[in-house]
């Protein structure tokens, strides 16, 4: 469905992505992990065309998205994105956040958009807040609305860029629960995350990035229990160190 081939990206002198290759099949839940600055966000942004890749191909259903003749907006509508910082439209209510894209981009009639918005807001448990403005919500609530907004466009694949790392620890759970439910339903997802538990238990494929390259990838069980590269080993050890003490609880 989505296939990245020899993708690379440089900012001036700085080569941030180096010959990235990987594939996403329908129904896949892929987690991307890696240290800060390893290029995870940049990769996601390239896939969603928020950054333009320097070279390489992004094939979506076999068509190269980076060629000149592709309608960017149409492609983007099929690829949903959830950001770390939510990026809800501050001038719209929760409901309107979920409707505006359907109306403007998909040209749906208002009633239909309204019904779809309510459906997905219900899915993330936010129907009670449809009249709120984003600044009136907690972080977890914002992220749930952002997920509903992405879902309302009925994308074929959902990209998440650290969806929980701007949240208070208490609110992380509510967002992860929504994501787990989506994964169960078979939604195709590509998730950049620092939540190792999510990467291991929910996804069926994990990609570890180091210094702009894919250093290691594979099934979560194998990757977490038998990391091959020393970098990944080092990386995973940092997480266990912090959480160690909780093991005894």
């Amino acid at each position, binding site marked *: 469905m989505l296939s990245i081939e020899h993708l690379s990206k440089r900012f001036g002198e700085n080569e941030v992505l180096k010959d990235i290759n990987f594939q996403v099949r329908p129904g896949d839940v892929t987690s991307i992990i890696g240290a800060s600055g390893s290029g995870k966000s940049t990769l996601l942004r390239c896939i*969603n*065309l*928020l950054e*333009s890749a320097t070279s390489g191909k992004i094939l979506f259903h076999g068509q190269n998205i980076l060629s*000149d003749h592709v309608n960017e*907006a*149409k*492609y*983007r*509508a*099929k*690829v*949903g*994105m959830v*950001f770390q*910082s*939510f*990026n*809800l*439209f*501050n*001038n*719209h*209510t929760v409901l309107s956040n979920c409707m*505006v*894209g359907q109306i*403007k*981009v998909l040209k749906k009639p208002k009633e239909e958009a309204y019904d779809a918005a309510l459906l997905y807001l219900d899915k993330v448990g936010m*129907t*009670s*807040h*449809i*009249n*709120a*403005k984003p*600044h*009136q*919500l*907690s972080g977890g*609530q914002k992220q749930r609305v*952002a997920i509903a*907004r*992405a879902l309302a*466009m009925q994308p074929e694949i959902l990209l998440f860029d650290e969806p929980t790392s701007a949240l208070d620890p208490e609110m992380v759970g509510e967002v992860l629960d929504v994501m787990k439910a989506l994964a169960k339903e078979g939604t195709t997802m590509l998730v950049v995350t620092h939540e190792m538990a999510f990467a291991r238990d929910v996804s069926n494929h994990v990609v570890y990035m180091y210094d702009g390259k894919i250093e290691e990838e594979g099934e979560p069980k194998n990757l977490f229990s038998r990391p091959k590269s020393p970098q990944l080993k080092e990386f995973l050890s940092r997480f266990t160190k912090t959480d160690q003490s909780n093991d005894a609880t």
Partner: protein
Amino acid sequence: MSISEMNFLQRMLYILEQYSGSLAKGAATTMVIAIVCTALGCVIGFAVGIVQTLEPKKKDNIFYKIILKVIKLLLTAYVELFRGTPMMLQAAFIYYGASQVFGLNLGMWQAAILIVSINTGAYMAETVRGGILSVDIGQTEGAKAIGMNHFQTMLSVILPQALRNIMPQIGNNLIINIKDTCVLSIIGTVELFFTFKSISGALYTYFEAATVILIIYFILTFVSSRILLAWENRMDGPVNFDLATTDTLAFTSGMMRFPRKAKRRK
């Protein structure tokens, strides 16, 4: 009683009484021009501001890139030129120059509105550009990510927020326009300041007429700025929203935080 025997206050009243018609007309002219031109200036400013924030992408057509570059350059020249030179001279050039050189006879009102609008537009262009850039880049990315094009993004997401951010500046421009309209006397616009000159020129009661006019100006600007302030507050909308059911989490942290921050920002 002859005017030479009156005291200051009596003279002021005499002027008010004698010239109430002219004063009212002058004030009305001033306000109409100021309001219309501030509005038109905002439109111009928004148009210019939007173009100035357009960034061509790598894969765009080379012609499009060149044209955009040229347009941007012209707009920059427009902004710099009109901001950098006195409006009175611009007025003279546009009104008399157009008819002398091109035989183009603009009506006085058309000319007045044209001149003040493009001037306001030049000032607003920078303000709007700032306003657009002050909107968090995440808003644009959010809109792009659901497939909106530049135009839709601007219209549904960025501009409404930019407008809110630059409202104080629009108010400022209105007040400046109320006062700056006086330079239009060069093209024969009978606004408030021109009325003042007529009165003081005819009666030689400079300070009395000046006091009257000062008070009128103050009322106009003060009332305008209060109305704009009220409008700004209305734009912010209610602090609370209707909750379909109560959600204690939202109440204790999410909702209550808003007035706290808003208060600090005032």
